[in-house]
């Protein structure tokens, strides 16, 4: 599904990622873990087009997507969420999700300004679809609230719902459980499974080991910019190097 080949990225003189290769299987939940500074977020940023890699290539279903801008990737069915959540705070919850339908609609400025018939139909469709995704994520009753007023945990879910509205083939989540309490984390786990059941490939960076071990089918471990290990949760838990890396950090 998504493949990375020998990805290297340097900032100034510092090598944040060094020759990392990987392959995320379609329909699976893959976790990326590693101590702080391992290069997880950098890797995410490279895959999702925020940075270009210094060296290496990224392929989405065999297509070279290296260095493509995020908006192009979105059209190819790739979407992500952010560690510090990036909502549109002055728009309603529903409107936030409606923006997620951007790639699935096409009325231009002229059609929108003159309210051409096709546009009206499309708007209706956008609204309905957005609402159904909100309900899917369990936020249906908050549709008309301003997004900026949501509690942090709800905001997190909203960001995921917004990403889902794109009907992506693969979704990247950057530390989705950060800042959530244990009840919210459980709900999140449920939601992620539900998403996976739709056949959407999921990749997530996460520090919450319990969550990762619980929901992920495959795990990649990064340390100091290099790939340390790859395997099922069980394999990773038994990997001595991984344990060493974490202990060394702690």
């Amino acid at each position, binding site marked *: 599904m998504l493949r990375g080949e020998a990805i290297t990225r340097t900032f100034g003189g510092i090598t944040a990622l060094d020759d990392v290769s990987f392959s995320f299987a379609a329909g699976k939940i893959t976790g990326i873990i590693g101590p702080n500074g391992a290069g997880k977020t950098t890797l995410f940023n490279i895959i999702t087009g925020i940075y270009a890699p210094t060296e290496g290539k990224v392929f989405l279903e065999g297509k070279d997507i290296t260095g493509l801008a995020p908006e192009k990737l979105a059209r190819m069915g790739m979407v992500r969420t952010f560690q510090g959540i990036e909502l549109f705070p002055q728009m309603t919850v529903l409107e936030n999700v409606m923006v997620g339908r951007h790639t699935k609609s096409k009325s231009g400025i002229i059609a*929108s300004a003159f309210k051409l018939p096709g546009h009206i139909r499309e708007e209706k469709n956008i609204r309905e679809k957005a609402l159904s995704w909100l309900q899917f994520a369990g936020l249906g009753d908050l549709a008309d609230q301003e997004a900026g007023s949501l509690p942090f945990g709800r905001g997190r879910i909203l960001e995921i719902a917004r990403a889902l509205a794109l009907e992506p083939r693969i979704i990247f989540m950057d530390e989705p459980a950060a800042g959530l309490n244990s009840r919210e984390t459980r709900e999140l786990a449920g939601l992620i499974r539900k998403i996976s059941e739709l056949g959407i490939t999921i990749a997530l960076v996460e520090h919450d080991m319990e969550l990762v071990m619980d929901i992920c089918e495959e795990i990649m471990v990064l340390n100091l910019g290099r790939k340390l290990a790859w395997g099922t949760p069980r394999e990773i838990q038994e990997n001595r190097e991984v344990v060493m890396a974490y202990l060394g950090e702690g």
Partner: protein
Amino acid sequence: MKRELLKFLLFAIVVSVVPAFVSGGYLLNVLVFVGIFTMLAVALNLLLGFAGQISLGQAAFYGLGAYMSGVLTASHGMNPWVAMLIGAGAVGLLTFVLGFPILRLKGHSLAMATLGLGIIVYIFFNETVDVTGGPSGLSGIPNLTVGSFVFDSDLKNYYLIWGFALLAILLAVNLTNSRIGRALKAIHQSEVAARVLGVDVHLLKVEIFTISGVLSAIAGSLYAHTVMFISPTSFGFNVSIELLTMVIIGGLGSIYGSVLGAALLTLLPELLRTFQDYDIIVYGLLLILMTMFMPGGLVRGIPDAAVALYGKLKGGGADVER
């Protein structure tokens, strides 16, 4: 959606009955200009209030529209409507082409680039004396006509210009409540999230810059045919700042706020009759105080203030009772 339409219809009705109460005086003339500035402020608001992109060179597009119309009709005898179309088209093309490099810039660089563009265009108005008449202006611009009907009085021009202004408002309102409008607001609030969701941020910025330019150019054409004379000073840097003030005072992102801002600033000499020589200071103060204390503009600021005041009064009353 329905509410928006109702609001618009109500506003349109108010606009169309106003002349009945004004009866041909100076105020009607001022209201004609309020219409022109409304178009300009709405145009800037689409760019600044929704997409969050500043432009300190709006007067250039306004002026280009006016000069295209003026030169083509006064010097080349072209039909005014055709000239208006050509003007709008030319400005559209210019803003579209220039938009690509300009809107790659952000913040202060963007402000400076648009400002520089405005100054360059202004210098061209002044220097191409053979075409534009230079600093002493271009006269002999005809009124607009439809068949044998000539828009030659304030009343006729009022309906003509407000017709255009209402159309501009309607289109802007439609736009802001659409897929495009949401994407614009998204750009403003989190550009990176908008991009990740597939919004082609750069292209959209360029498109809205173009729309803003075309709208301004049409306002310029209308100005030229109403006043029948144009000179560069009407399209200088200070006009761009005036437009900025209108949008800020009315409220960033509020279309009707822009109408209010345009009306207030055009009527300002009226409202501040005693301030004659002081109006430059009043401008400066308004800009500072509004951005500091009413960042949402009057349209949002006044209700907020009213609510706060009401709360205080209520709170105060409760205190007395206790």
